[in-house]
């Protein structure tokens, strides 16, 4: 987190706010709700309280304005700058302005008012822009349906106002660091010649001939996918990637989610009811056989026949010797399977059934 220059902060913890005018983009009740929820994010993790007032001067005055609105920081029409807020202080201090030239929404479409308000109120309280891409105080707009403070945001607000009085200290999600040697993965898949690693709300993307790993929210590509995916695999023949969480799965072609999902893994693939989730999956593009790993067993599915092969499940340890009894993630590249378990990665030759090398799980990131 980054504090504003000079560490400005409110000298009291009970603050007031007033909504001076409303955007016509949303019903008034929706605006009230978005603003209230945005303040609650900050009050839940700090000693701060926010009381709405309906007249007079409040600490944080909220307005929807466009163009030059006489604060020496004109807005710029649609796109670009969405909103801004002033550091704690009297008069204009703490005030938050939203660009009325944007379309304000209460869903995933650009731009979600709750998401932007939560960020702006961070400024109203004394936080500057964070370099943590998972933080609410990161400067670029990114939306996911679970708007929440990251641990970085919580550390920042508590540095200014102290801890919450809540007996259970509030915590937020940490942003995975690609070069953290303790990094593990939820799922990995190839996609159109690239590699995508999934962890919590994030993907890490390895692009051929590009030295750095790209990290961002999964929702940036697929706004309708849940976070915390458990397995993913690509069927190259169909240019399709399938994502699994619990007993549901989703399908996408590139950035486009396919219609009719999520579907049920039992009905679609023929898993028994006892299978509640998939740990990892990979499809062999030569044979059209997809391997599903569940606990210490695996199933094999025929993508051409669209049915499970008979004789499964089998034990992982029997047919993939050396990789252990549990798989977090797996993908296929150049004919080899790469299995991931914890911080380890096993390069496996399916023809000879031998492990060829053992690496750190994040070895693809050029750390």
């Amino acid at each position: 987190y980054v504090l504003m220059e000079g560490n400005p902060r409110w000298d009291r913890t009970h603050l007031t706010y007033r909504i001076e005018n409303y955007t016509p983009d949303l019903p008034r009740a929706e605006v009230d709700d978005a603003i209230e929820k945005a303040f609650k994010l900050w009050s839940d993790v700090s000693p701060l309280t926010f009381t709405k007032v309906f007249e007079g001067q409040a600490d944080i005055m909220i307005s929807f304005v466009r163009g030059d609105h006489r604060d020496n920081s004109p807005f710029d029409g649609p796109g670009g700058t969405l909103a801004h807020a002033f550091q704690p202080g009297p008069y204009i201090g703490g005030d938050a302005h939203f660009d009325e030239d944007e379309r304000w929404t209460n869903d995933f479409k650009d731009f979600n008012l709750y998401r932007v308000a939560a960020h702006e109120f961070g400024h109203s309280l004394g936080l500057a822009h964070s370099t943590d891409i998972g933080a609410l105080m990161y400067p670029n707009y990114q939306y996911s349906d679970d708007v929440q403070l990251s641990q970085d945001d919580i550390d920042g607000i508590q540095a200014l106002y102290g801890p919450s009085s809540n007996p259970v200290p509030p915590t937020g999600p940490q942003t995975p660091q690609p070069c953290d040697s303790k990094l593990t993965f939820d799922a990995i898949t190839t996609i159109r010649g690239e590699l995508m690693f999934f962890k919590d709300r994030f993907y890490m993307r390895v692009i051929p001939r590009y030295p750095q790993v790209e990290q961002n929210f999964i929702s940036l590509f697929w706004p309708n996918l849940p976070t915390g995916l458990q397995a993913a695999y690509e069927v190259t023949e169909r240019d399709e990637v399938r994502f699994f969480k619990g007993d549901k799965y989703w399908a996408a072609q590139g950035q486009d989610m396919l219609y009719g999902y999520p579907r049920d893994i039992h009905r679609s693939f023929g898993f028994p009811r006892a299978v509640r989730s998939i740990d990892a999956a990979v499809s062999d593009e030569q044979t059209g056989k997809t391997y599903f790993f569940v606990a210490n067993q695996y199933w094999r599915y025929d993508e051409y026949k669209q049915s499970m092969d008979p004789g499964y499940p089998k034990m992982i340890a029997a047919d993939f010797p050396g990789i252990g009894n549990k798989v977090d993630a797996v993908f296929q590249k150049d004919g080899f399977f790469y299995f991931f378990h914890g911080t380890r990665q096993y390069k496996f030759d399916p023809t000879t059934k031998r492990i060829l090398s053992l690496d750190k799980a994040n070895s693809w990131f050029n750390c």
Partner: protein
Amino acid sequence: FPAGTSETQERDVEMVQKYLENYYNLKNDGKKIVKQKNQSLVVEKLKEMQKFFGLKVTGMPDADTLNVMQQARCGVPDVAE
């Protein structure tokens, strides 16, 4: 790099100039970046921006940098008054 016409390159230059003015306190002397005498200030501002966003620090407005600059964002005013 994506193939760009001189028109799109001109637009990119204007976008970079405006972005650095808005968020990195680059002073506008009325001339475009390419025509400024002192290029090093622009390069330094670009490097600062690229470092912040975890991009490859080149000091050049490459495709990734332009992509990040095109994303909508918050603009915090520098001063309270």
